[in-house]
Structure formats: structure tokens, C-alpha cells
């Protein structure tokens, strides 16, 4: 499969502690075994009555797309239309709205917001994205698969550009996560990210294996499905050359995406 080129990447990452502490993460290596710190993202402000009832995860998704457009110096019209595909990955971003619906006995509008599908739907509505779509549930491997699916859609001509969106939030369910090791090994970092891909050269290879024990400390904390896009942002910021490898693990699956001959557009040149 051809490796897509990277047009832009928007990343929002948690920067304030759930409990108000000054330096909740410390060094990632020192963080495990503490009571799980959570670095949270504030609910973005967005004007317009349409967003009055929108959930925090939806607003963060929109903010991530805004950040992506800014990164690519592109107007919002550049991603509108049926030639744009949208792939969404999350592990648990729906947990907050599910909980609120259960505990606060929310009504019909709130119920609609409990569906994972509503996060990319808000993006589709706001930016007029009406092409192919996919929604994957899982940890980092879900996002790596979403990138692979995006590359496939670009390769077979289904779309001209593909957006890979990932959102993870934790604050609303912090007490529930606290009792489960899967969520407490590393500090949790709320993250929303959106990657803009276009057709490129070179080769993209996805690999997945099951089994094996242990996993390295995630850099800067645990972001689950949003982790690979945070890693990619870091890699891009180092002004890299050469191949890229993104990896992640979830429920005993280790997935890896190898991106050879990576090309990325000069910022703002292809709008």
C-alpha cells in the first residue's frame, strides 16, 4: 500500500491536573504506581447555539480540526465535500457522556450524544465532510488501523484526502478508572488530534501481533487511541528525515505502522 503524505496535524493535549496539582506527571518513568494523575483539557468555547448541548469530546474534536487547519494554513473549505474521508478512533471518550446520561437521567438530545459516532458527526456537520467514514474502538492499534484504512481509501481513489481523528477524555470517569490497573499504570493525558493525509509515495506497512507481556512507559503519559498521533506530532516537530514507525498496544495486541519515504507538504502550500 502507498504511504500517504502528511498535509497537517492538529494536536491538543492535557495540560492541567484533574486535582489542581502543579506537576502531576513529573517524569513518566517516576509516574507509575502513584494514584493516577489525569491531565485534562478544558471544554473549548465555541460560539453558536448548535453547540449549546455538545459534549466536551465533540468540542475537543472540533478544536483538533481547527488546530489541524491552522497547522496546514488551510481554510475550512479545503476539507469540505464528498472527496474527504473521515476515520475516528477512540478507546473510551464516550464514557463521559454515557455516565452523564445514566446518572443525570438525560433526555433525547443527550442520548444521541452518547454514541461514539456523534464525535465525527459533529466534525462532518461543522466542516461539511461527507465522504467515506469509519469508526474504530480500541487503544492505539485502532488509530494505526484508521491510518491504514485512510491510506487504503486514498490508494483506491475513494477519496482525495482523509482525516484521522482521535479523542480521549478521562476526567468525568476518574473515580471509575482509579480502581482498574489498565487505567492506572501510567498518568492519563486527555488528547484530541486530527491528521490530514493525502496521496503519497513510498510504502506503508501495518503489522499486528497478539501476545507478549509488558509495555514500555508511554512517552508523556497514557493517551490510548490518541497516542500514535501525539507521537507523530513529536516526530514531525523534530523536522525529521527518513522512515517513520508508529506503534501501540491494547489488550495484548501490539500494532506497528511503518511509513517509508515519508513525504509531507510544505506547510500551507497545498490549500
Amino acid at each position, binding site marked *: *500500500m502507498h504511504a500517504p503524505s502528511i498535509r497537517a496535524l492538529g494536536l491538543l493535549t492535557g495540560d492541567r491536573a484533574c486535582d489542581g496539582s502543579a506537576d502531576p506527571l513529573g517524569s513518566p518513568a517516576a509516574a507509575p504506581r502513584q494514584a493516577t494523575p489525569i491531565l485534562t483539557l478544558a471544554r473549548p468555547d465555541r460560539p453558536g447555539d448548535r453547540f449549546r448541548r455538545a459534549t466536551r469530546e465533540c468540542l475537543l474534536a472540533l478544536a483538533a480540526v481547527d488546530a489541524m487547519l491552522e497547522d496546514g494554513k488551510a481554510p475550512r473549505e479545503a476539507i469540505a465535500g*464528498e472527496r474527504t474521508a*473521515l476515520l475516528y478512533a477512540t*478507546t*473510551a471518550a*464516550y*464514557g463521559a457522556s*454515557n*455516565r452523564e*446520561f*445514566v*446518572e443525570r*437521567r*438525560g*433526555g*433525547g*438530545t*443527550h*442520548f*444521541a*450524544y*452518547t*454514541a*461514539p*459516532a*456523534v464525535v*465525527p*458527526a*459533529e466534525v*462532518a*456537520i461543522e*466542516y*461539511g*465532510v*461527507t*465522504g*467515506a*467514514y*469509519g*469508526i*474504530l*474502538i*480500541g487503544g492505539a492499534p*485502532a488509530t494505526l*488501523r484508521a491510518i491504514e*484504512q485512510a491510506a*487504503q481509501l486514498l490508494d483506491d481513489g*475513494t477519496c482525495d484526502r482523509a482525516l484521522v481523528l482521535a479523542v480521549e477524555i478521562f476526567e468525568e470517569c476518574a473515580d*471509575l*478508572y482509579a*480502581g*482498574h490497573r*489498565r487505567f492506572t499504570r501510567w498518568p492519563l493525558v486527555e488528547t484530541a488530534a486530527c491528521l490530514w493525509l493525502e496521496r503519497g509515495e513510498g510504502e506503508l506497512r*501495518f503489522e*499486528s501481533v*497478539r*501476545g507478549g507481556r509488558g509495555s514500555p512507559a508511554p512517552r508523556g503519559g497514557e493517551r490510548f487511541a490518541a497516542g500514535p498521533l501525539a507521537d507523530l506530532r513529536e516526530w514531525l516537530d523534530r523536522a525529521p528525515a527518513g522512515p517513520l514507525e508508529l506503534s501501540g498496544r491494547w*489488550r495484548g*495486541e501490539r500494532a506497528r505502522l511503518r511509513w517509508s519515504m515519508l513525504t509531507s507538504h510544505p506547510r500551507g502550500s497545498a490549500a
Partner: protein
Amino acid sequence: MAAPDRVAIAAAGVITPIGQDLEAFWSALITGASGISQIERVPVADLRVQRGGEVKKLGRIKEWRGVPDCRATRLLVAAADDLCAQSAFRPLPLDPARVGVVVGTALGGVEEGEKALAGDRTRRRLPGALYDAPGWNLARWLGARGPVITVSTACASGATALAVGADLLRRGEADAVVAGGYDALCRFVLRGFNALRSLTRDEVRPFDRRRSGLLLGEAGALALLVRERDLTGPRLGTLLGYGSASDGFHIAAPEPEGRGLERAIRAALAGARLSPAEVDFVSAHGTATPLNDRIETAALKRALGPRAHEIPINSIKGSLGHTMGAAAALEAFMCLLAARRGLIPPTLHLEEPDPQCDLDYVPGRARAARPRIMLSTSMGFGGCNGALVLEAA
């Protein structure tokens, strides 16, 4: 460029409110049986509508040892048990690392979350609430150690799962994939649709002038997907194409002209390299809400042109309710069984035609026909539209 591998649906297994195996499901559809009843498993006294397509007893499996006490997981395992009974797929007849699992769901294990929030802090309860938990539970039950993927494109999830499963085979990531959809009736979803006021107190009447809403159902529906070139035994049919498109219109209401569904249908036919004139039968999403059926009719007319008026179209949601994540997979299996048996199941409770829904929806009784190429459509929350193109064996 070489043509992509054709992917066969080698076998299918189901658990539904109208039958706990594929044969019983088919018989009930053909005879016009209804799986709608008073909901008994969860409290509904405070809800406006208290009926649905509930599976009363998970009778297939006598021994649940090793299977979590999670309704969604057990529906999946029951469907898988039917699949395995028909295809001798358990114990796995091939390298477990080459067997994938792809499931679609609108709700995942959300009922486990409800229980956890109600104070049940059983160790597995909260992790079981993650939407991908039932899929992993199914993989463990099967002994599959290949890719495990959960997709959640609302009520189009079953279609998406079949398509993603086929892609795993085409890319060589697996040699066999168990793919399909599921969802369980629970307080969470019943209360949600109750609040949306989209449930009917009447019968579910797809495309009928008097239609007044849907009823929810629960089910599991799984297919065994294999590359056709690797298949040695019989098959139900072939998955030829899939298309998806976002409405980009509203989080809970379909786009008024059905443009998203139209694009999904066109993409599915393009993927199958077929023209609208080659479609012999359509399994419609057909929820029986006033909006859905009118919009879907309009989308079918535009996507299929004159052919839309010439071919039978049905909806099976009058028989078993809207089974959400399972619906599209069940409807795909119904298409393939219709082709095999030479009978198209009727659209139950369609009695008074709606002038705005003026296609041939197979009212009344099953119709003799032997379609070769079939289209199955799905629409979901968030403006998710999906379409599958299937070929008879």
C-alpha cells in the same frame, strides 16, 4: 492493477428474537412471525413504550463457563455457536493467529457500565463497559488470535464490520474472519429511544402510510468470511462491495434528501463494479419512522434510477425490531438466504401504502423470486450511511 480478492460468506450464525439459529430465523421471516413482545429482562414500567424484540432465553448454550456475565457478549457467543455448528469452526480448523474477529456495535458493553455505576464493582464490570470488550470476549471464546476489531458506526455497524472483515482478508492479515454485529436491549438504550420519542406503540410498519416509529430489538449475527480462492466447501454468497458516506447534516436526524445514503449506494455498486440495472433485490434499512422510510425511498430512486421501480424491496424490522449493530448483518444474511431459497420475506405489517413510498416493498406474504445481486442499506445516528452489495452463491 489486479482485481481484488473476492470474499465469500462461507456460513452465518445468528441469535434473534424470532429464532436462535439461521434456519429458525429464516423460517420465522418467511412465515411472517413476529418477535415483538413485552420486555421482561430489564425494568420498563416507567417507559412510554415497553415492547421490543427481546430474546427471551439464550437457549443454545447450556454451559457459560468462561464467558463473562455480559448480555452483549453472550449474544455474540450464541451467534458464534450457531456459526460454528454449521461450519465446524470450533475448535478452529486453522492457525488461530490467522483468524480475525470484526464486530460492529452501537452500544458495546454499555449495560456493564450501567451496572458499575449502580454500584456493582465486580472486577470485570467496568472494563466490560468499553465498547470493544464483547468483541475480545468473542475472540477468546473462539480461540482466535488474529486481529480483533470493533467498529461503531451506529446502526450501520454490522455492514461496516463485514466490509472491514473482507478488507482484512484482501490485505492478507487473516485467512478467515468472523465478522458481523450485535447489540443487547438494556435500560440505557430503551430509555434513550424513549426520550427521543421515536418508538411506536403500534406495530412496526415499514413504508406503511400509518407508520409511527420503530421498536428496538436485540440480536447477534456473525458470518464466516473467507477468500473465495481459499474456499473448499459451500458458501452462502459473496460480498462484492461496500460503500459509506457521512450526511454531515445532524447528529440524530437523517439528511432530508438522503444524499448520504445515495452516495453510499453508488460507492458500493462502484466497488462491486456493477450498475444499478444489475440489482435484483434491496433489503432496506426500513425502520418505520415517518422520516426514514420516505428519505430512503427517495435515495433508492435516485441511486437506482428506473430499476428502483422494477425490483422487490423489503424491510424485516417489522418482524424483529431494530437490532441496531446486528441489523445490517442480519439483513445481509436474509438476502443470501432469499437467493438460496427462492423466496423474499415480506415486509411485515405493511398494509396501507404511503404515496411517498411508492416502490414495491413486498407486502403481505413472501414472494417467489431468485435474486442474484442484492443491495442492503443502513442508516445510523451521526449521519452514518452504509451499503453492501452481495451476490448469490
